[in-house]
């Protein structure tokens, strides 16, 4: 069915938003067919974002683990993460649609910074919703957004994290739907967002496939990425969908007290923020509180295409907890001179589980962002 990935996805939104979603779907289809739009998008990615991002052989980490680790360096993009690919793509769409006010939600602040950056680049008004808890732990990104001219709107309700910031952004959109473009930051939300975000992130997988073939002469055994809403993962997966390659998403297993963000592993299909997918919820259908040391993974839902890939077993979803992610953060600093975002550190952390039994295998890890924003948290955690 249109707008679904198997039984997942759809458009579960207030009636007021339906025409706007239809308009967005139509506009995106037209733009994606339009050579001029494609050229403009890839031009921005090349000349402003700095693509293609490099593929780095993590030599010392490989020796340490006994597998061949290659890192797709989304951390080297302008603004420091993969989020900028999607932000630029959607800003070009918003301009095509004649929208002058942009709103976004953010957890780690990376999507907020990417959106504020794209708005500054094109002279558009920008408001970013962010939970008060995330404002505290990702303070540097809050200041960056303000410097870029964006208004950061604090969301104190609910768990005061990404989930509530997203709800508040949707409320803004329902209210200002005529003038406002909602620049959603992950492969979640109502149709067409999960598809549109995947297409704007597909560049990661397409580049990486070419690069690893060029450098190693073959495809990797596995492609590994962290999964919050799932945009960096779906971006890199989409380059390898039809290959004989394991696709592995890494979910946040949180603290030792059973609080986590592992929606696919522990969730039950349900509806949050406009689509049906795996959702961490109680037996009454109330959404559960989540926890992850990585703000960008601290979310009870997941993109519907990941639910589908899990159900069809094309991809599998594994767990890395706070402690393992922090350890991976330290390890990558020491062995490779790279500070990964705590989100990306979950993907790195999984390598310890993967290596035994896969000695010598080549794996490709999406290093979705850089970790400067997380220094504060890491120091607090005592590493």
């Amino acid at each position, binding site marked *: *069915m249109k*707008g679904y990935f198997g039984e997942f996805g*759809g*458009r*579960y*939104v*207030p*009636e*007021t*938003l*339906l*025409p*706007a*979603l239809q308009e967005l779907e139509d506009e995106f289809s037209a733009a994606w067919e339009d050579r001029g739009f494609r050229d403009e998008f890839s031009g921005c990615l090349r000349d402003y974002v700095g693509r293609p991002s490099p593929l780095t052989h993590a030599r010392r980490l490989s020796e340490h683990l006994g597998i061949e680790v290659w890192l797709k360096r989304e951390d080297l993009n302008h603004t420091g993460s993969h989020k900028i690919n999607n932000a630029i793509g959607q800003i070009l769409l918003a301009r095509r649609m004649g929208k002058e006010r942009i709103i976004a939600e953010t957890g780690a602040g990376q999507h907020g910074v990417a959106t504020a950056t794209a708005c500054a680049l094109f002279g558009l008004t920008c408001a970013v919703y962010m939970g008060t808890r995330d404002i505290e732990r990702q303070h540097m990104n809050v200041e960056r957004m303000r410097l870029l001219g964006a208004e950061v709107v604090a969301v104190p*309700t*609910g768990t005061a994290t990404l*989930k*509530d910031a997203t*709800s508040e952004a*949707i*409320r803004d959109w*329902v*209210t*200002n*739907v*005529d003038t406002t473009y909602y620049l959603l930051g992950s492969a979640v939300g109502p149709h067409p967002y999960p598809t549109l975000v995947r297409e704007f992130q597909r560049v990661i997988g397409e580049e990486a496939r070419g690069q690893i073939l060029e450098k190693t002469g073959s495809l990797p055994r596995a492609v590994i990425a962290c999964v919050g809403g799932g945009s960096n993962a779906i971006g890199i997966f989409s380059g390898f969908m039809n290959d004989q390659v394991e696709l592995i998403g890494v979910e946040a297993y949180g603290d030792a007290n059973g609080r986590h963000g592992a929606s696919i592993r522990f969730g*039950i299909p*349900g*509806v*949050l*923020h*406009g689509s*049906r997918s795996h*959702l961490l*919820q109680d*037996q*009454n*259908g*109330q*959404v559960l509180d989540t926890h992850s040391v990585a703000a960008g993974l601290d979310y009870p839902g997941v993109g519907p295409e990941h639910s589908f890939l899990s159900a069809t077993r094309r991809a599998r979803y594994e767990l890395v907890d706070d402690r393992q992610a922090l350890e991976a953060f330290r390890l990558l600093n020491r062995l490779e001179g790279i500070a990964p975002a705590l989100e990306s550190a979950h993907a790195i952390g999984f390598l310890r589980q993967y290596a035994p039994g896969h000695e010598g295998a080549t794996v490709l890890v999406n290093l979705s962002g850089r970790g400067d924003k997380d220094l504060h948290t890491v120091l607090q955690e005592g590493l």
Partner: protein
Amino acid sequence: MIAEAIRTSKRAVIPYVTAGLPDLDATGEIIRALSDAGAAAIEIGIPFSDPMADGPVLQKASHLALQAGFTLDGLLPRVAKWSTGVRAPLIVMSYINPLMRRGMGETLVRLRDSGIQGVIIPDLPSDASGIHEICRSIGIDLIRLVAPTTPEERRREVVSQCSGFVYAVTVKGVTGARSNLPAEVRRQVQDIRSLTDLPVCTGFGVSTATQVEDMLSFADGVIVGSHLMGRVMESKTPVEESRKVLRMLMM
């Protein structure tokens, strides 16, 4: 008989009450008081952790009710008692996730068996035909919303799948009292009327007797939620307060 109750009401006001606030006993008493005070029908709001179509007042009401331990399992046996003793038909308003949690069909049957006559689901999927058929076969009204932005073709489809009444949303936005309501809503109600014999009721933002009066000059009924719940949450005597609010709106 929701449609009938609205048609025969001289001044059809439909209050919205968040269930479980401050507790379920109070909800029962509030519902009885509202019915006695002349409510045409009553919407029972099911609290949800992430109410994306609600403004600050109903978000808070939802949050407090959940903190106080609200569950659907706790509510339904009580509704069964209330519904036999209350004149006004009872309608459930709920986000879709709590209704789907243990199967949509099964939950709708449980609602019907406790005496609920209709459901309103603000985040029904855009291709909701499946649910409207389930509702029809179960014998519970599916009240659907038509927004100010809804295009004609979609309006036709939504109205054709609707029963009980058609809910015309007055504003682009979330729930919550507003001092000014857009004039276009009159036109919107007329457009809906040309498609159906069902009553057409307006809601979102209504808080004063003047607004009610205004709306009832062209609509068959008016829904009042945030204004009532705001007053209920501020009051030490919520039952009395609800009665007072409704009387004032009906003046």
